[in-house]
Each structure stands twice: as C-alpha cells, then as structure tokens.
C-alpha cells in the first residue's frame, strides 16, 4: 500500500517524466530512471508532509530514497511507532 502511494508521489513529483507503473516495475534506482534533483526535492517534500517524517539527507538517508521497498518499510515502521 505505502509502496504504491510512494510510486504515485514519484510520478507527481517528476511531472509525469516517469509513471507510477514504471516506478513500481523498476529494478534500478530512481536517479537512473531520470528523476532529477528538483523532482527528488519535490518528492522529499511530499513524503515529509504526507507521512510526517523528516528526511536525513546523509548518504544513508539518500540510499533509502533510491530503494522504494526499503523506504516503504521504513515509513511503515515509523508510522507504527
């Protein structure tokens, strides 16, 4: 569920440069799908406001953003806390 919602947010943030289906089917990081820095910042902002979290933009935190499964698991664990 969270993963599907994240894929929609990626699509919205990229202004349609990638679709939610492409994001869900992807086996490569978001940056390799053509998601630009601006889209990435929009995505971060959208996730932060929707899930009430704050991203740590360290290299580890960024790795999380590039892997939707890990990100969805992280958000689920934050939400259940």
């Amino acid at each position: 569920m969270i993963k599907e919602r994240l894929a929609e947010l990626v699509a919205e943030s990229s202004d349609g440069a990638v679709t939610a289906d492409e994001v869900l089917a992807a086996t490569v990081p978001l940056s390799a799908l053509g998601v630009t820095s601006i889209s990435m910042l929009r995505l971060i902002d959208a996730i932060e406001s929707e899930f009430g979290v704050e991203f740590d933009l360290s290299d580890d935190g960024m790795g999380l953003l590039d892997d939707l499964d890990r990100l969805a698991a992280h958000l689920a664990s934050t939400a259940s806390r």
Partner: protein
Amino acid sequence: MSVTGPTPYVEFAGPGSAPSTGPPTAPLTWGQRAIWEAIVRTAPDDHYFNFGRVLKVPGSRTVAEVCAALAALLARHGAFRTRMSDPLRTTLAEPYQRLAEKGRLPVVVTTEDPDRVLDELAARPFDYFGEWPVRVALVLDGDRVAHVVLVFCHLAADGLGAEVALRDLRILLLRGPNVRRPAAPQPLDLARRQAGAEGRRAAQTAAAHWEREYRRIPPTMFAAFSTSSAPSGSPAGPPIWRALLRSPALELAVRSIAAEHAASTSTVLLTAVAELVGRFTGHETCAVLPISANRFRRDTTDIVATMSQEGLFTLDRREATFAGLLRAAGPAALRAYRSAYHDPADRNRITASVSAERGEPIHPYCCFNDMRFADPGPARCDPAEITAALAQTSVTWPMSQDKLNCRFCVHLTAEGVSLTADTRCLSRPGMERYLLELEALLVETALR
C-alpha cells in the same frame, strides 16, 4: 529611447491582503530578504539584479487591449503591487513590504528594438520604496503592439517567477482580461507562512546544515587582495569583470558525463566548478553557494515572487577521480538545495557566531547559478564530436563594474558558462584560465 505619443498608464486594482481582514503589510519573504541584503551590498551598482523578458504579443492587439491585460496581470499577482516600506517612518527595525490594492503603472510606448528597450529599462536601479517593481514598454508595429517588454525588480520575481508572469500575460492576451482561473499564490501569504510554525521547522533544518558546514569549511574560497594574483590589467579599470566561455564541446561533455553517471547536467557542472575552485586555491574542502529555485513545494511552484536563494554545497576533494566526486556530489547537492530554503536572519546569526568562534569571518564568496530554462539533459555523445567541437570555443568579456556582493560567481545560461569575479581575488588571465581548465576537465572526463 524614442517614445511614441503620451505615456499611457495601466490603472490596476487587485485584492488586498488575504484573508482580507489582515494588514496589507508583512515581513519580507526569505527570498526577498536575501535579495535585499545583496542589493544593499551592491548599491549603487544594484541595477545588476534587474532583469527582463520580451513577450511577442499573440494575435493583433491595440495598446488599450494590452494595457487591460497588464492590469489583469497586476491584479492577479500581488508581487507587482508590492513595494518596500520605509523603516524610517515606522518603529519597525526591519524592512517590510506593503501591498497596494490599486495604483497606476506608467507604460512606455515605442517603436525601437525590444532588446534595446529592455537594456535601457534595466539600466538604472529601481526606487524600491517609491516605484512599482516592474517596468513595462510596448513596442508598436503600426498601430498594433508587437512586443511587450517587462523589466523586473528582483524583489518581485526571480527568473522562474518572471516565466509564470509571462505565461499568465500571454493567457490574458489570448483569452481576454476576464478569463476565470484559480487564484494565484501570493507573496504576503508566503511571508506569513515562513514566519509561522511550518516555516520555522524548515528553517531550523536548513540552519543546522549551515552551522555544521560553516564550522568545517575554509573561511573563504578566494581571499581578498590575494598577493598570488595580479590585479586587473588597468589600475583605473573597474575591479569586477565577467568572462563568458562559449563552448559547444563543454556542453556535449557535460551531457555525456551526466548520462554515464545518472546525474543531472547541473550537478555535473556544480561538481566541476567546485573541483576547479579547489585546484585554483588549494582547498581540500570547497564550499560553493548554488542558487536554488526553491520551487519544490506545492504552494510555491507557480508563485510570482523571488524564491531563489543560495544553498551551501560542500565538496571534499580527497576522492581522486571525477566519478568519485560526482557520487558524493549527488546527495551533497540535495542537502545544499534544501539549505537554500532558509531564513536569512538565521544565516546571518550563524555567520556571526561561527565567525566569532573561529576568530575570522566565514563566507565562501563563491556562487553558482544555473539559469538555464531548458536543460538539454543527459545524453551520450560521440567522443569525436566533442573533440571536433573544441575548435568553436571562445572567451569574451561582456561586462565590468565597480561593486559586487560576491567574489566569484559562475552563471550557466543558454549563451554558455560565465565567470564574474573580483579581479583583486582572481586576475583576468586567471579567470580565463579557470574557464578553459573547466572545459578541459569536463572534456577529458567525457572522453575517458
């Protein structure tokens, strides 16, 4: 500029502060505050921050029709009805902004070349307290308006804000001034949100980045009056010069590297600029201030306002290869862009406290502004094509002036890569060598 006929006025009226019960004044937005500080430091050469656009008028429109569209544009966007308020006449110590519900904007009517008209309108600083923050000229072809020239005060709009205004003016010319559209976001509301709880949270995240990095970066990138570089060629000449590198080879190389490393062309250039600053100065950690559009929040994407501000990008150059630098630069650039959405008051406080702690002033004085509206994007290019394009490289000197609020500014535009520098920190031969070595670094990396 030769003016045709009497000066018409655009009589405008628009909503006051929203909610309508609120006062028509607000603190400056963070973006306005940042530009205001830059203007104060650059005066009397502050026309440097003026910029303009020329809109080709769609269809066949009379002066009266274009004036009606302009009135609707000013009604829609409070930024154009907003001026600085004089702090001397109030008890407020800080400058603030005041939104007018109505007013009259003078319009120049001429038959001259639109680009020349733009340069003339942009050549003198705005009266930030008295004048409306947009200047307009209508260029006639016969009795119809062929072009609208708009020159913006940077307190009212940045490059992307101007694009929004131009798009809206075009819609108003095409569909008429009464076209119904959802209301536009307003700078006064943004200023209040930034001062509220949500704004403070974002500001604190950004401030933590500035504070952490200010504790570890070199005090500045280019020391003033460096003895290692000779001053400007002529002692009587102005100290600030701009060198413009036009290099199709550099453009191809940047696109190629971006494609190879799944990075944006902007990040490739930012990384190369920082690495080259390191090579020129010997600093292992380089700090560059990239100007970020700050339009990645839903409420600010389409606002006519000045949103762009400097972020803080730091690059540790211990990584030997450019590919290694680029890997680290991706997350570092995102941290920098997030830090660009900051309250300049926090930044001033941090600059003062860390400077006191370290016993010397801390400021990179080294900025990077990607002003391209159309990024050609990553694309693998033929190495032979890149090498062949080197024959077209040129460096010119389009501008010089006396004062600037920075020492080393790289701008990316459709024309090329320009470096505007204080020649007391980096000589003109040094500036030229910097741009050519930037090209060499990128071309070599792309061909590797």
